[in-house]
């Protein structure tokens, strides 16, 4: 009788882990609470750094959804029991699933920008998040939207909800920087006469071709970068926004009117990740993301035998790293099930 694994979360990490495990001959149950697979990947229009369409990556992942994977969509977990090396998961619709291993791939959610009250998200008309901008890009109504607010000058705010004790998140979300630069370029492609300012603390262009994108943004698109964190925004009578930052490279406070403010919201662990962690007794780090058994070496298993982690439950990560991590998890699971 072949061994079985349950993967919770049908996003990038969950899909790739499932696909790889199925390839390795493991019977997989993939549980997703949404009516569709793909998770956040479905929200992104184009991916950094090469600006390829995210659907292409989704198509790749979907091709892995072959025999040996049982999909459970719209499925909410009500509880998890472990007895004698077996995990029993009760779903809210009364179904019960059993397996020999459990992979947590419930990922993250974006920071709720309303918590940074002084940025006026949800209050001022022309403050949106990077996620919303992606939605606009995806729905191809972007031109109308941006024209609607007569956007000529756009401010992009880095580190919203990241590296911020006031937001309760000390960690860096890593990918907002490159997202901001990508989106700045994309806006410029649509509206060549827009003036774009990125307000950043550090530009953490850590991965391959990221720095080159920053270079391109400056050289080709004339996007301007002002080093300083937004302290507060206020709305003008004409619905434009006044932003106040310190231009730290000149050592002077600066105020500027922008027509649209885009908040680069960071990663926080998804509530589902935290709920499952509490159910299973998994260890959370100071940043509330889940801890693997060892940060450097045993990066895909947990201290509980049979419970594995994949993707952004362990902290902010991009698509490529998530897929790589998912494969590593699959190997670990397969190894465990031998």
């Amino acid at each position, binding site marked *: 009788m072949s061994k079985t694994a349950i993967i919770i979360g049908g996003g990038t990490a969950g899909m790739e882990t499932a696909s790889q495990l199925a390839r390795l001959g493991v019977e997989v149950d993939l549980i997703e609470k949404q009516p569709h697979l793909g998770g956040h990947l479905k929200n992104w229009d184009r991916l950094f750094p090469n600006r390829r369409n995210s659907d292409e990556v989704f198509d790749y992942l979907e091709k892995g959804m072959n025999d040996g994977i049982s999909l459970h969509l719209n499925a909410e977990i009500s509880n998890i029991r472990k007895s004698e090396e077996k995990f029993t998961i009760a779903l809210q619709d009364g179904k019960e699933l059993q397996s020999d291993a459990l992979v947590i791939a419930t990922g993250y959610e974006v920071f709720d920008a309303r918590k940074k009250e002084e940025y006026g998200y949800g209050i001022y008309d022309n403050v949106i998040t990077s996620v919303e901008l992606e939605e606009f890009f995806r729905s191809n109504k972007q031109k109308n939207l941006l024209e609607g607010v007569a956007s000529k000058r756009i401010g992009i705010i880095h580190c919203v909800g990241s590296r911020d004790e006031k937001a309760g998140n000390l960690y860096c979300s890593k990918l907002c920087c490159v997202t901001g630069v990508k989106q700045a370029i994309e806006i410029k492609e649509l509206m060549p006469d827009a003036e774009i300012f990125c307000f950043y603390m550090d530009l953490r262009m850590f991965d391959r071709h990221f720095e080159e994108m920053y270079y391109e943004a400056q050289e080709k698109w004339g996007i301007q970068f002002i080093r300083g964190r937004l302290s507060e925004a206020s709305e003008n009578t004409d619905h434009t926004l006044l932003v106040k930052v310190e231009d730290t490279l*000149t050592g002077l*406070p600066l105020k500027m009117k922008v027509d649209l403010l885009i908040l680069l919201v960071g990663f926080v662990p998804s509530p589902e990740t935290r709920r499952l962690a509490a159910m299973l007794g998994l260890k959370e780090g100071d940043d509330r993301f889940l801890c693997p058994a060892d940060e450097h070496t045993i990066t895909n298993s947990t201290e509980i035998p049979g419970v594995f982690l994949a993707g952004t439950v362990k902290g902010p990560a991009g698509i490529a790293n998530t897929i790589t991590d998912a494969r590593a998890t699959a190997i670990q699971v397969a190894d465990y099930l031998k």
Partner: protein
Amino acid sequence: MKSFGYNITEDRQIDFDANDRNVTVFINEIEPSILLCMGCGSCTATCTTGHFTDFNIRKIHTLIQRGELKHLKKEIMKCMLCGKCQLVCPRGVNLRNLILSIHTALEKSGL
């Protein structure tokens, strides 16, 4: 005007929208490589004039980008144009031409 023994201090804040950025646009057009600056400061660190004075080409350029031209003329006159800054710039910014462009811009704008 009366004096009460204290003064109203001028706001240090850069008022980006109030600033005239014609000079900025002019300079950026002549020397677009300046857009590549990432504020590392190696130019200022190697600067000979910076050794003798508080001349800071990195800051001068950043202020120009913001349209702040108050002390520009006084500052830019100190540069000896030796070109060391250009030699160390990791982004290949043509700093000598930038400085000459600033001179030209100041001349043209009558500042």
